[in-house]
């Protein structure tokens, strides 16, 4: 599919149509494959086999699940607000879909090469919180509303460190064009020069994706599924599809901006096949990283989530921008970027380590309900 699209079709409408088709196919197949992969990865981590019955190694399991979901009755609570309730899944889905438009998969193929591509993706994906709020409010359910508000607060808060870490990178490259950013990394990918920004990006992406340890908006043991609580059938599966599409988008973004995208190593010289392979391989690496984190970490509490964002990640992101500014203004050689950013990463590691090792009794904690001793809600069942 992608091969055919590197030829110039000539007609702008046909070209856009083919591009959209390619994205739709990529997204649907990608999401189906990722759901299967996630179940397999989680099974392996928990010493199980995972889906094995439908097809070889359970490959067709998600397809069967999808058929079941489409066939399910599309239910809506009587007291729900009809239009807002029914539109909410699409408002979550469309931003994730639109973000694909600006992503250059290889040197020659993207639906559109935008000069402000990075900014476009950040701005558009930032809109998905509206859908979560709509779903939470329209369900007319206390848990759904709580989950929706949590989702919006989390998405808005973690967008700031994510944007700041990307700004730090664009300072080095001097362009918001994703192709320029990839080409800049021809010999050395940016995670070498900007390890702190890469760390902040990974953590913020985990939070934006609402995956463990940041799946607080949909935490089963607290808000029983959050904004999705009243959804079933096709609308619920659209939420699910959007979540996996976002996983692909953020992994692609990380692969392009920090891991050298289609260019490093030797992508430009070796041609299309290596470029596709590089983009795919790096994206898969990030996706597997996100999945691995999901099944290895306990869930945070909402106050821990917020203070980690505002008191740790955002100051560190500003530190990264400040250090980059120093290096750029005084024209210091490139390796000072690695030194300063690496020192910042060590600082981040020290902060996390100190918090993890601290004796819980000496921590100043705000009890949820005064009087009752509050154990950390970290031992949740997972999904």
């Amino acid at each position, binding site marked *: 599919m992608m091969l055919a699209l590197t030829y110039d079709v000539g007609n702008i409408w046909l070209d856009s149509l083919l591009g959209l088709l390619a994205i739709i196919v990529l997204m649907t197949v990608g999401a189906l494959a990722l759901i299967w992969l996630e179940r397999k990865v989680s099974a392996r981590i928990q010493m199980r086999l995972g889906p094995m019955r439908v097809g070889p190694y359970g490959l067709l399991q998600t397809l069967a699940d999808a058929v079941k979901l489409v066939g399910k009755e599309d239910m809506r609570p009587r007291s729900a607000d009809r239009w807002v309730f029914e539109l909410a899944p699409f408002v979550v889905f469309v931003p994730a879909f639109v973000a694909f438009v600006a992503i250059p998969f290889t040197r020659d193929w993207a639906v559109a090469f935008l000069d*402000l591509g990075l*900014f*476009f993706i*950040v701005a558009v994906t930032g*809109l998905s919180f509206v859908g979560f*709020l709509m779903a939470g*409010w329209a369900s007319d359910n206390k848990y759904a509303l709580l989950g929706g508000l949590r989702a*919006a607060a989390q998405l*808005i808060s973690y967008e700031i460190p994510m944007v700041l870490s990307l700004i730090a990178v664009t300072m080095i490259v001097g362009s918001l064009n994703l192709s320029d950013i990839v080409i800049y990394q021809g010999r050395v990918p940016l995670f070498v020069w900007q390890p702190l920004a890469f760390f902040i990006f990974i953590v913020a992406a985990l939070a934006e994706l609402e995956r463990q340890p940041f799946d607080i908006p949909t935490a089963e043991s607290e808000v029983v599924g959050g904004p999705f609580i009243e959804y079933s059938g096709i609308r619920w599966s659209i939420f699910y599809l959007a979540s996996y599409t976002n996983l692909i988008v953020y992994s692609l973004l990380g692969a392009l901006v920090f891991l050298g995208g289609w260019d490093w190593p030797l992508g430009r010289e070796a041609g299309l096949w290596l470029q596709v392979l590089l983009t795919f391989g790096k994206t898969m690496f990030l996706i597997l990283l996100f999945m691995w984190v999901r099944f290895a970490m306990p869930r945070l509490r909402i106050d821990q989530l917020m203070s980690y964002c505002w008191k740790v990640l955002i100051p560190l992101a500003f530190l990264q921008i400040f250090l980059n500014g120093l290096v750029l203004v005084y024209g210091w050689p490139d390796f000072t970027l690695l030194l300063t950013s690496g020192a910042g990463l060590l600082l981040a590691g020290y902060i996390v380590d100190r918090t993890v090792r601290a004796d819980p009794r000496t921590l100043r904690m705000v009890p949820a309900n005064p009087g009752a001793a509050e154990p950390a809600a970290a031992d949740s069942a997972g999904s």
Partner: protein
Amino acid sequence: MTVAQVIFYVVAALAVAGGLGVVLAKHAVYAALFLIVALIAVAGVYILLASEFLALVQILIYAGAVTVLLLFALMLTRTSDLPEAMTGAQWPVAGLVAALLGGAIIATVTTSDWPGDEDGMITRVPFDDLGSALFQQWAVPFEIASLVLFVALVGAIVLAREDEPEEEGE
């Protein structure tokens, strides 16, 4: 009619419909959601005017961040249970002011000399120029604006925490 004109009319109709929805919706949450539609449609107009940067900022800041505050306030308070609060006794006055303002804007637009009018082309401003104008030429006003915002933020926190007892031991 060119393609750009068709797109313009679609986007402009969306913006107007969104704006009317904000005013006419019976429900405060509906009004906030219509506001998002109107803001995104205005971003579409910016794209047609070849100012992509402004359009993306509009989406990121106005549609993405400002409306979340509105929605938060509406969903956490009880305004949604009081639909009659949406139409006050002053609506004729508000309508008159809105009509006057709209008339003034239309009069200004039709009588002004716009710089691009001679050749009918849009003058593009590269966003590098925008950045250097904002952060070099006009850096001091920019910093003053951020200082004002910072003071407002601190003031809001002080006001919000006024009735809580001071127990921070650090």
